[in-house]
């Protein structure tokens, strides 16, 4: 190999520049903001203060954090449980059907996500389609309260983020060298054993990538909880929005975001540690 592996190539320049201007600068700004003081009515005073970080320890805020991460974890777990078999089976379909299934999965996501959540609202209402069917078949005699529950929120979250999981896993299943799996079978491993000792580890990068891609947005998503959960609880996204718009406390909003980023990073590091998957580093 002739090329110097330790020098950044010129092809990197556009992305590096773009990222610096549109990611690094705004981030530094947010960080700076979090150390400033709130002005009496609106805006900030350029004066160093740790008030916002001290406020973070308020039990209500901690509760919001816990709630948001709990929702995100559950969403990720369910998306993985549902998405893995889907991606795996799809990848093993004949080539012709594979792209069809992927396309069918992606098409709805080209329409508006809010509208799809409204679709769920119509389905889950007390006089909605699901309750109607259940009553028709005599399974229940009084409409169930499905909408405005925690379960409804989870359904909506998993539904909205599932494609990220499926795509990531699908990509890595496609890359699996099946001769390895066959070899393990030839050597006497059962189906299950071959799957857990060969296939699953081989697709781990996709699983990890999928989890990260689902987990991260689900921490910040709030409109689903507002629509399907009846806005009865507050997630980090709501809280930050409230701090910015209603309480007009920009430093507090910034501090909350910094804390949220920190916790997100920590969780991903933990994942990485336990999976011993260095490839994930790329996602950080």
């Amino acid at each position, binding site marked *: 190999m002739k090329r110097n592996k330790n020098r950044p190539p010129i092809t990197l320049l556009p992305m590096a520049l773009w990222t610096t201007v549109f990611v690094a600068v705004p981030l530094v700004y947010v960080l700076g903001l979090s150390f400033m003081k709130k002005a*009496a*009515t*609106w805006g900030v005073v350029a004066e160093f203060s740790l008030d916002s970080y001290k406020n973070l320890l308020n039990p*209500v*805020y901690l*509760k*919001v954090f816990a*709630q948001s991460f709990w929702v995100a974890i559950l969403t990720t777990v369910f998306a993985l449980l549902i998405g893995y078999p889907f991606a795996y089976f799809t990848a093993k379909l004949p080539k012709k059907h594979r792209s069809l299934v992927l396309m069918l999965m992606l098409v709805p996501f080209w329409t508006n996500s809010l509208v799809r959540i409204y679709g769920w609202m119509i389905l889950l*209402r*007390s*006089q909605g389609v699901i309750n109607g069917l259940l009553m028709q078949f005599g399974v229940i005699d009084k409409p169930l*309260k499905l*909408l*405005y529950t925690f379960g409804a929120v989870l359904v909506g979250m998993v539904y909205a983020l599932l494609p990220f999981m499926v795509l990531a896993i699908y990509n890595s299943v496609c890359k699996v060298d099946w001769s390895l799996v066959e070899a393990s079978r030839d050597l006497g491993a059962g189906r299950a054993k071959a799957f857990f000792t060969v296939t699953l580890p081989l697709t781990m990068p996709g699983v990890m990538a999928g989890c990260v891609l689902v987990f991260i947005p689900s921490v910040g998503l709030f409109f689903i909880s*507002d629509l399907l959960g*009846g*806005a*009865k*609880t*507050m997630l980090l996204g*709501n*809280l930050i929005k*409230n*701090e*910015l*718009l*209603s*309480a*007009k*406390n920009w430093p507090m909003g910034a501090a909350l975001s910094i804390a949220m980023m920190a916790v997100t990073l920590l969780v991903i590091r933990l994942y990485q540690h336990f999976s011993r998957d260095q490839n994930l580093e790329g996602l950080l």
Partner: protein
Amino acid sequence: MKNSKKRLARLLCAAMAAAMVLAGCNSSGGNSSSSSAGQGGEEQVLNIYTWADYFPADIVEEFTSTTGIKVNYSTFESNEEMLMKLEAAKGGQYDLILASDYIIETAIQKELVGKLDTQQIPNFQNINPAFQSKYYDPTNEYTVPYAAGIPLIIYNPELVDFEIKGFEDLWNPQLADSIVVMDDARNVIGLTLKSMGYSLNETDEAVLGQAKEKLMALKPNIRALDYSTPYNLMISGETAVGYMFTSQIITALNENPDLKVVYPEEGLGFGIDSCFVPSDAPHKENAYKFLDFILDGERSAHISEETMYINCNSAATPFIKEQALVIPDEMIEGAEFMMNVGEADELYQQIWTEFKMS
């Protein structure tokens, strides 16, 4: 096969290059269009900023077809969002904004609102003085009132076994998991304060602390919080009781006339949404033309029937066919404006967060 893939890859690169060029063209194109204004009167454009559908689509279309002025109708979700955008645009870019009373007060204080040239709005005289000279614009220099609203209680007698008379009844344990209220700190804490005999605009920490205690007890009765479409929950029977704005009450009543409206005995809140022209609006004259257009009595009446808010225009009265919701005079007299509470805003938000997390 391999060849076609290669070709595809090249095609993609070419497409990307084209996109880049387009992006460049676009930015310069944008500049030229905005600089073409100025000579020979204003550009035939009007940039309106308000909630979706608040100016009925047919009115906007009629305006364009009669004057030839193209309307760009952009929307916001909340007054606070509007103020933030207007501040970032330094009172420019937008020509006509329709928002609520308390936020207009702040905007005027921040010098983001321009004084109206009423000479250019002959129909300005049509405005019903009852909706003028309010706290946010005591001398009527900045605003044109567009619609007024009062939040009221509505309930479904089929699902509620007792008569609801006021805010206090919302705490009745019989209403467990069956109330919808606005997803808004000020309005819901406000109703709690009213039920305790205090003002909507209370800033005293001790009083707000008591209100918080009381509010927490309301949580078990709340089925959902919905700011914009609570009538759907009343119509579908998802909830038995609702606290919502006038237009939403009428929407619910139109679908289910059996619902009962309650004027809370503890007193009412009151709000006026008004139009204003930002201080540095690029097309002020067009904004005046539009204001004059909508202040026409017949059109104003049509608007009220579309939006179902209380009309603020004297000239419109003869054209309004049905007085869908007549609010008792004595109740209006005691109605209280929701005003800015300054620094207490944060306390309100704090209480709200705790309420949601309880």
